[in-house]
C-alpha cells in the first residue's frame, strides 16, 4: 500500500473510533443521569400525580413544593450543614497534612508502626464503632453540640486524607527540600512555604470529596443530635417522611435545594478538583 493511501485509511479509521467513543460515552452519561432527571421530575408533582402518572410530565407543575421545602427551615438546616462541613474539613486537613508530611518526608523512630496505625483505620467498619462512638459522645458531654459533628468527622477523615497526601508529598522533588534544609529552614517552614503551596489542588480535591460525604451524611446526625436547631439539612428533610404519609413532592424539592450548594461548589472549583484528582496521588 502506498504511504499516502495508508495514512488516509488510518485517519478514516481513527475518526470512526472517535465517533464510537463519543457514542458509548454519551449513552453511558444518559443512563447515569436518568435518576437525576427523575428527581427533578418528581420534585414538581403533588402526591396524586406522583401515584398516578409518576414518569410523565404532569401539569400543573407544583412549583410551590420548593416554597414549602424552603419554609420548612431548609435554609437554617443548610447553614448548619455548612458550619459542620467547613469545620470538619478544616479539622481534617490541617492535622492530616502535617502527618502526611512527616510520613512522606522524615525518617523517624516508629514510623512504620504509626503509619499502619493510621492505615488500619480504613479497615474498621463504620457500623462497628457507631454505638461505642455514640456512648463516647454522651460521656464527653458533647451530645447535641456542634463538636459532636466536627471531631468525629475529622477523625474519620484522617486515614484517607493522610494516605493520599503522603503519596502526593512524596512525589515532590527532593531538591526543593535539600536546598531549604541547607539554608537551615525548619520543618514547619518547609511544610508551610514549600509543601502546602505546591499541594493546593490535591488539598482542594480532598476537601471537596470530604465535604460531599459530610453534607450527605444521615446516620451520624440522627444518632448524636436531638436538638432541632442544630439539624443538618439531610436530617432536616426527614420532616417530609411521615409514618403514614410521605409528601414526595416537597421532599424531592428539598433534596434538589439541598444538593444545590454542592453543585455550585463543584461548578466553581471543577478545574481545581479535576487537577487534584488527575495529579496521580490517589493510588497505593
Amino acid at each position, binding site marked *: 500500500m502506498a504511504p499516502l493511501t495508508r495514512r488516509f485509511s488510518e485517519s478514516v479509521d481513527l475518526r470512526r473510533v472517535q465517533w464510537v467513543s463519543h457514542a458509548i460515552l454519551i449513552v453511558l452519561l444518559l443512563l447515569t443521569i436518568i435518576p437525576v432527571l427523575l428527581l427533578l421530575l418528581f420534585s414538581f408533582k403533588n402526591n396524586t400525580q406522583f401515584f398516578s402518572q409518576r414518569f410523565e410530565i404532569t401539569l400543573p407543575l407544583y412549583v410551590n413544593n420548593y416554597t414549602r421545602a424552603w419554609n420548612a427551615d431548609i435554609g437554617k438546616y443548610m447553614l448548619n450543614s455548612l458550619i459542620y462541613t467547613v469545620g470538619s474539613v478544616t479539622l481534617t486537613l490541617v492535622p492530616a497534612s502535617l502527618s502526611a508530611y512527616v510520613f512522606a518526608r522524615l525518617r523517624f523512630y516508629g514510623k512504620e508502626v504509626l503509619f499502619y496505625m493510621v492505615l488500619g483505620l480504613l479497615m474498621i467498619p463504620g457500623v462497628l464503632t457507631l454505638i461505642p462512638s455514640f456512648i463516647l459522645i454522651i460521656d464527653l458531654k458533647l451530645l447535641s453540640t456542634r463538636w459532636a459533628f466536627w471531631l468525629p468527622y475529622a477523625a474519620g477523615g*484522617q486515614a484517607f486524607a493522610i494516605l493520599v497526601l503522603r503519596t502526593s508529598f512524596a512525589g515532590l522533588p527532593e531538591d526543593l527540600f535539600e536546598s531549604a534544609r541547607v539554608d537551615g529552614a525548619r520543618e514547619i517552614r518547609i511544610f508551610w512555604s514549600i509543601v502546602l503551596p505546591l499541594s493546593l489542588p490535591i488539598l482542594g480535591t480532598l476537601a471537596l470529596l470530604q465535604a460531599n460525604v459530610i453534607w450527605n451524611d444521615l446516620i451520624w446526625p440522627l444518632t448524636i443530635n436531638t436538638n432541632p436547631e442544630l439539624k443538618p439539612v439531610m436530617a432536616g428533610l426527614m420532616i417530609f417522611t411521615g409514618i403514614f404519609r410521605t409528601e414526595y413532592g416537597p421532599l424531592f424539592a428539598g433534596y434538589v435545594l439541598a444538593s444545590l450548594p454542592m453543585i455550585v461548589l463543584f461548578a466553581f472549583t471543577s478545574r481545581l*478538583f*479535576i487537577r487534584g484528582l488527575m495529579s496521580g496521588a490517589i493510588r497505593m
Partner: protein
Amino acid sequence: MRSRFAAGGERGRLLRNSLTAYVFLIPTFALIVVFSYYPAFSALYHSFTEWNGFAAPRFILFENFEQMASDRIMLASLRNMLIVSGWSLLMALVPPLIVAELIDSLRSDRAQYWYRLLFVVPIVVPLVVTLYVWNFIYDPDIGLVKSIFDSFGWELETRMLGDFNNALYFLMLIGFPFASGVNVLIYLAGLQNIDQEVRDSAQLDGATALRRVIYIDLPLLKGQIRLLGILALIGGIQGFQAQYVLTDGGPGYATMVPGLWMYRQGYNYSEMGYASAIGTVMFILILILTIFSMHRFRSQTEYVAD
C-alpha cells in the same frame, strides 16, 4: 542523601527528626485515638459480653461467636455479603476503566474536559435520593420497569425487590451503569501519567487497543486498581444503606447482609454484645482481605528521604 552525614551524625539527626515528627503527629493521633481507636476497642471488648448498651456488660467469652455459627440469618447474610462485595469490586473497577479508556482515546482536549466533569458531577446526588429513585423505578405496580414492559405488551414475571429469589440481584443493579464517579478520574490520571511513547509504539507494532489495555495499561495502573479495589471491598463488606432504606433485609432475609443484621441486633433488639461480635467478624474479614490484596499486588510506592 548527602545530608545524612551532616553535623550531629545520623543518630542525632534521627532523634531530632523523631521529635519533630511526633509533634507534627499529635493532632492526628489525638483525634484518632479518642474518636476512632477507643470506640473500636470498646466494640471489640464488648463482643465478648452480653450488653444492652448502657447497663454494665456481663462477660460471656465466646458465646456470641458460638451463637453466630448457628444463626441461620447470619449465615445467609454472609453468603449475600460475598455476592454483593464481589459484585461491587467488579463494578468499581471495570466500568470506570472502560469510561476512562474511552475518554483517553478522544483527541479533543475540550471534549475530554467536559466528559471528565460530567462523569464526576453525579457524586453530589445524596445516596438516599438515588435509593428512593431506584425504588420508584422498581415499583412492581407503577414503576418504570413495569411501564416499559407494559408498553411492549410483555408480561413482567418478577416483583423485583419483592421477589425472594431475585431481590438481591435487583438491589445489586442499583447504580447501573456504574460508570460515574471519582474512579473514572483516578484511572484517567493513571493513564495520562503513562509514558505516551510506550503506548503509541505498542499501537504501531500492530497491537489492538484491547491488547494494549491488557499488557501495558493494566500493569501500570496497579497502584490505582489496588486502592480502588480495597476501598470497594471494604465498602462492599460493610455497606447496608440500600438494604436499610429499601428492603430491610427482606423479603424474608433474601437481602440481609451482616452490616444490617448487626444494626438490627444493636438498635432493635438491644443486643449490643452480639452486634459487636458481628462487627468484629466483619473487621476480621476486611483485615484478611486487605492484607491479602496488599500482598498480592505489591507496588513500588517506596521512597527514601531523611
